[in-house]
Structure formats: structure tokens, C-alpha cells
């Protein structure tokens, strides 16, 4: 019943036998032990589990591991490089864009995706772009500030 998948996560290839029903989010968390991606709901509303799959943000609770076979996935653990924070990570820290931190990995990935698509979003575009990810702590205000800060800091 198990199926073999090959998924590249943060630059490393993982070949594993998985049940066809295994969610990508559980593949990341339980199979290869990358627990930075959080799970906050069971109806694909909260977005805490958002990762980049082949460069595009997806909710990893809505993707089966077998669907990700052959894909390249980036999680929060793979965002920075050379021991440095990604500009979006840094912006969240600078602007106090997080409190409890639980939505933060998914939120940061969402913002990376947003800024990839639209490097200089307006406030309205930012708030619209964050709709797929819920935060209960910040009232979103400092997340919006963080996105603007990151947009300034990121090379286009």
C-alpha cells in the first residue's frame, strides 16, 4: 500500500515510502522531522502550515505527500541562507510582527510568496494577500508593517 516518493525539502532529497493518504504537512513534521511548519486547523483555513512548493505557497495540509512527489519544497527552516535570516524573517522580528509565533512560519512563507508576485504591494494588497493565513495575536497591524519593511529591504 505504501508508495515511494522523492521530495526535495530545503535542498535535500528525501526518498521515503508513505501511505497514499499521508498529508505533506505530516510528511514534513513526522516523517522527516521538520517541525517548524505548524498545523492549526483541519479545514485549510488557518494557513499555519503554508510552505513553498516549487516556489509557490501551498497549504501543506491540503497537499498529499504523493502529490508532492518530485517537487521541491521550502519550509521555514530553509528560508535563510549562510546563517542569515531571510529579509522577511528579519522584518517580522524588527516590526514585532509576531506574538505567540504559531502562525509565523506559515505567515512568513505567505509573505515571501506575496512579495515574489508583487514586490511593492499597497497596504490593501498586503491585507488581501494575507487572507489565507490567520493570526489571532497581532491584529495583523505589525504583520502589515513587517511586509512593508521587507519589501523595502528585498532586492527586486
Amino acid at each position, binding site marked *: 500500500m505504501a508508495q515511494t516518493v522523492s521530495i526535495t525539502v530545503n535542498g535535500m532529497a528525501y526518498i521515503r515510502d508513505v*501511505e497514499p*493518504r*499521508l498529508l505533506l504537512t505530516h510528511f514534513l*513534521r*513526522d516523517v522527516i*522531522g*521538520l*517541525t*517548524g*511548519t*505548524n*498545523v*492549526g*486547523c*483541519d*479545514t485549510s*483555513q*488557518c494557513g*499555519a502550515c503554508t510552505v513553498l512548493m516549487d516556489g509557490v505557497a501551498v497549504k501543506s495540509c491540503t497537499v498529499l505527500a504523493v502529490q508532492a512527489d518530485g517537487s521541491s519544497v521550502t*519550509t*521555514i*527552516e530553509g*528560508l*535563510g541562507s549562510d546563517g542569515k*535570516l531571510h529579509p522577511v*524573517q*528579519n522584518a*517580522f*522580528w*524588527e516590526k*514585532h510582527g*509576531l*506574538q*505567540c*509565533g*504559531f*502562525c*509565523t*512560519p506559515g505567515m*512568513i512563507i505567505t509573505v515571501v510568496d506575496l512579495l515574489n508576485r508583487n514586490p511593492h504591494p499597497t*497596504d*490593501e494588497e*498586503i*491585507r*488581501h494577500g*494575507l*487572507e489565507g493565513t*490567520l*493570526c*489571532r*495575536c*497581532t*491584529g*495583523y*497591524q*505589525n*504583520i*502589515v508593517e513587517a511586509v512593508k519593511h521587507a519589501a523595502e529591504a528585498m532586492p527586486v
Partner: protein
Amino acid sequence: MATKTFGASIKRKEDPRLITGEAKYLDDVRLPGMLYAAILRSPYAHARIKNINTEKASKYPGVVAVFTGQDFKDLPALPCAWQAGGVKNNANTPRVLEIDKVTHAGLGVAVVVAEDRYIAEDALNLIEVDYEPLPVVVDAEKTTFPGAPQLHENAPNNICMDWSIGDADGTNQALGEADVVVKQRLVNQRLIPNPMEPRGCIAQYMPASEEFTVWMTSQTPHIMRLLMTAFVFGIPETKMRVIAPQIGGGFGTKISLYPEYCLMAALARKIGKPVKWAETRRENYIATSHGRDHVTDMEVGAKRDGTITALKVKTFANLGGVLATIGPGVPTTLYGRVLSGAYKIPHIYCNVIGTYTNTAMVDAYRGAGRPEATYLVERAVDLLANELKMDPVEVRRKNFIQPNEFPYAPADNILAGLKYDSGDYEKALNKALEMVNYEGFRKEQEQARKQGRYLGIGFSTYIEICGAAPSAWIGVGPGGQGWGAAMWESANLRVHLTGKVILTIGTQSHGQGHETTMAQIVAEELGIPLEDITVQLGDTLGTPFGYGTYASRSAAVGGMAVYNSAQKIKEKAKRLAAHMLEAAPEDMEFHAGKAFVKGSPDKGKTIQEVAGAAALAYSLPPGMEPFLDDVTYYDPPECTYPFGTHICVVEVDADTGQVKVLRYLSVDDVGKRINPLIVDGQIHGGIAQGVAQALWEGAVYDENGQLTSGSMMDYAVPKASFFPDFELGSTETPTPNNPMGVKGVGETGTIASTPAVVNAVMDALSPFGIKHLDMPLTPEKVWRAMRAADMS
């Protein structure tokens, strides 16, 4: 150290692990040999459990064991730790698994333990339960009506408490003599708190030493250990270690002891392996505590000039099918005692009937009682203004407690001996009015109405009560509020050989940033660089006992323990430095990280030098113990009372009933601010939750006790696009009740904002003659009201 740390907007020390995914939340913790539990929950809101057949589930491959309530008969029902309002003989609480009967949908009746969580969930479907469904009641008030289904034999008419404060006769008389009396029924709807991290628990048991280690999503690890050991397992506290790892928000839902935590511990002991349960969001909606759910009839009396003369309140507070750990304390002490708000109300009477219904437990949710009280008072003022055809701002001004009247004891001893500490309510109001340009807005509103656009402005000039609480006041002693323990806080401050500090505390950050703010207090007092201070919390092994984080108490109570501890470290440092300098201890001063002889700051010893000398102990003054190490317990003499003005500006779409928040402004006075960046963040988040109650959120049960708003698809957790940027201002009135002058900020936004929004919408709808609508003010509700008004 030259830079000031107390009062500085310093970015948080805890953030690097949170923005990189390194933080370990409950479900990230894995132990060797760990098994996974899934809980079968009653689909019925009220039913007898006639039989449970677990045979098929037990045989499912990968299942280790299946248990029912019968297997845990030896464990008592969970304790109710705040039996306020005479809940003594009818405190019905959940069991680890229910045995004979369930009183709300979502209570656990069986558990599967398996090798992984998918298998455990699969096997749940194979358990056969024979239920005998019983009639259901879900409404806070109707549950007391004759003929309503009875939930518990020991609670006739489903009443678990009947609590009154104030002066009934005086209030009735004042209402009788008032020029005008406004009566209104207000429904404060049930909410689902929704921390982004659901709950969870891992328990491990070591048979040789008979010791438990329990990881849990808790705001209160020390209370959890006390309740589990003393009241459920009947073992000494020393036999259990509770660890609260990184906590992803709580908002009150992670205060209480829940059945699952005790169940995991019992399973770990039975099976001999560690067992994990990670709550799903669906479970979080049906099995974790909810908030609010009041039905209130209020009467407010006043003179023709707007002077309020009396307030009378009767509230039915829905407490759910069983009681949460502190459930009864929320609609009593935390609600009734703040009903005077920011106003001099000469006569107050409040009666609260706490009721059982076939719904999930109701417990603290951000603000816990104070939002319900503030909503009532601030709506009352607006309804009165409307009746008197006065500006709501003027009615507020007319009734404010004045700066020279502090300390202020609200009428009829409703605050049970405590007094508001300090305030200048009008100053905050004036500042907010200036920010919003009130006069300008009224003109704009008038113009807009001529064009068929409905703008509204709403005010909330709130007060709240933080810093819970003086132990004797809140406790079970004579005149106390019935909380079954104390409410002091603790700190253990150690300056190590290298001059680096480890501070352990009894409060439990779950998003508030204690690792930064508590370190700021130490840095300020001892002049030690912030990066040299590490704050540790959340583990009963290695932290002093504390009551945890809720009720906006961590800064004013926990922070004060840290502050006092730093003073004691300073004193010892001065004595040791005097010895090192061969000076008299009484000639010493401590400033900016240095102990020196008065007048000669150049010839002092730094705190790092003194810490090294204390740790090495080669030469100490006679009788002095080695090491700079202090443990402090702090019991506050009083609570603290933040205040401010919130203003909401809305536009109601006449065609659709949609309410749009155009502007949201607040001027909050939370006393001294340890870290303004964090303070503002707390206010933002609080406002968002309070606005959401006014406009969007509501937990809905149908007549069968089924939660129809049972997932994030059906319950309106607000999104980023729902809000404008909040415009924040502040005034700063230090509390005289502690030397730091801090009051508290965790809940102000939620407490203040809800009535500001509803008042704004009612202001917008005033041309329709609409005086009141109950929350949430959804487009449909608003549209129907406008249409009905048009028809008439």
C-alpha cells in the same frame, strides 16, 4: 549602562527561534517509544451512555489499547478551583472520560492509543457506543424555565449559583426616583477563543520512582501540577513535573485543567509508555472552553441632566454542561465587581445566575468578565444619551470619576474593599477626541446622511482591573472571592560567576514576550546588558511556584517579583562591594550597574565583579552566603486599573447592511510601559478580538446542542483585510500600587473595543430609529433591522 531599557521599544529576545521554526510547541515534542491517543467524543449534547463496545477497535492493527470511562473509575472528577457564588454542592465537572452520562457534545467517552495518530483516528470509527439521547437545552436563561431538561440532580432548574452584590433596595429606590430609566436586554454572545495553537498533552511515567512528567499547553503549569497531583491523582506534588513548552496563544483557554491532561497521565501510567494527544481544531471548538455567553437585563437611571443615579443588572451566565476550573469566577468577581466602569454611579445592584446548559464549558476568554461588564456599562451610557438626546461624550464627562477622587471605591462596596488606583479619564477622552476630530466628524456625518450614507461614531471610555490579585482578597477566606488558592507571583534571580543572569519566573508567557520584558526590568535595575539576561519559564522543575499568566497580571504582579528580587540583589551587591572596597555598607550606593561609595562612582565595583566575588566566595563579609541568588515572592497589596478611550468610526451600507470600520482609535493608559512596542502589539491584538465580537464572531448551537459554527469554515476568525490600521495614542498615569508604576495591558483592547464598535453602528443607524441590536452585527442582521425600520 547608559541606555535605558525600561520603557524602551526593544525587539523581542524570544523571536529568533520563532521566526526560524526552531521553537518547540507541544506537538513538536517527540519522545522515544511515544504512542498517540485519539479521543472518542460524544456526538450527543445530552445522553446516557448505555454501553460501549471497543472490541473491534482493540483488534485494529497498530492499536495498543482502548479504554472507556469505566477503566478510570478510580480517578475523581476534575476539581473546580473557583467555586464563586455559592457553587458548593453542585460543582459538576468533567471526568477524564465520562462514564454514565454526557452533558454536552464533545465530552470524551473512550480513548484509543495507537502507534501513530492516523491509526488512532481510524480505530475511533470502530468503537460502538449505545447512547440514550436526552432532551437538550442550550440557552443561558431558558435552561432555568419550568420544564427544561435537567442536567444534574444536584442543580435544580440547572442553576449552579445565584450571586448578588450591591444594594438592591437602594438601587430600586434610586431607579424609582430617577427622571429617566432606560431598560435593555443585552445578549453577550458566546465566543470561541481560537488560539492558533490548539491544546495538547504528552505524559510520561517512570514506575520505579513513581514520577510523572507531563508536557502540556498551559498558561499555568504550577497550578496544573497542584490540581492534578492533589485533587486527581492523590499524590504529592513532588511526583509530577509539568512542562509548558512554547505556547501558541491561549487567551484564557489554557488556564484550566482539562480531562485530556489527566487522561494522558493515567494512560502513561497504565501502558508504561509516553502518550501524546494533540488536539484537532474541531476538538478545540467542541471540547475547549468558550467565552462570554450572557443574557442580561439592565436598567440604568439618571437625572435629566445626564447624571447617572443607579444601575441594576440581572445576568444569566451560561457555564456549559460542566464547570471549567475557574468558570464560576468569571461572571461573578471578574464581571459584577467592575460594573461601575469609569463612572460615579451611586447605587448599583447586580445579580448573576450561573446556569448549566448542554454546551461546551464557558471559562475565561481574553478579558474574562470585564469585557461583558464594559459592554454593558458603555452600552448603558449610550442608550441613556440617546434617551436624553444628549451627546454620548457629554454624558460620559458628566459622570467620570475625577482625578482628585482616587483612590475611588465604587458604590455599595461592589469592589469588595478594593479601590481604583489612579486615573485621568477626561484627559484620555480629550486626546482621543482630538485625534478623531470629533466636531469635524459630526459635520461629515451630517453631510453624508443627506447623501444617503450612514456614518457612525462610537465611544468606550473604559476602565479595567488588572494585576490579580491580593491573595486574601481573591481567596477562600472570610470575605474572599472564592478562588481556591492564592495569587502572588515569584522570581528567582541569579547572577552567575560570569555576570550573566538567569531569571526564572512563575508566570507563563504564551505570546506576551516575558523573556524580553522581564529581562528589561532586570537590565534596568542591575545595569546588566539585556543580552546577558536569560529568562526561563514554563517548567515546574527549575522555576519557583507561580500562578501563571492571565488577567493581565504578569507585569504588575510577576514583574514586581522580579523588581523586588533585583532590589535584594542590589542590597547584597552593595554589602559585598563595601567589603571589597573596605568601606562601610551604609555609605554605599548602587547605580547603573555599579556599587560605589557615595560621591565616588569611579571607585566602585561593577555588578559583574561583585557577582564573580560572590560566586567564588574567597572573601565574603562575616555571615554572608556565597552567590548572588535571590528568590522573591510578591503578593500585590491591590489590583491596578488601566483606563482609556476607544473610538470607532463606521459606515453602514444601506443596501447590504455591511458594516465597514473606517477608523479605529484608542488612547490607552496602562501606567508605565516596560516595552511600548510590545504594549502596542497587545493593544492591536486585543482590539482585533473585540471588534470581531461586535461584528463577526459567534458560537452558534442549534436546538439539539450541535455546534453549527464548529470549524474555522463556519466561525468568523477575522482576516487581515477586515481591519483598518488602528491609530494608537496614550496617556501615562502610573499606579501608586507598585513602585514600577505598571498597570497591565494584555486585555485592554478586547475589553474596550466591543462597545465602541456597537455604539458606532447604533449611531450610524440612529436615523432609522434603531436603538439596539445584539452582536454580532452581521450584514443580514443590520439589513433586516434597517428594512423593518423602513417598513414602519
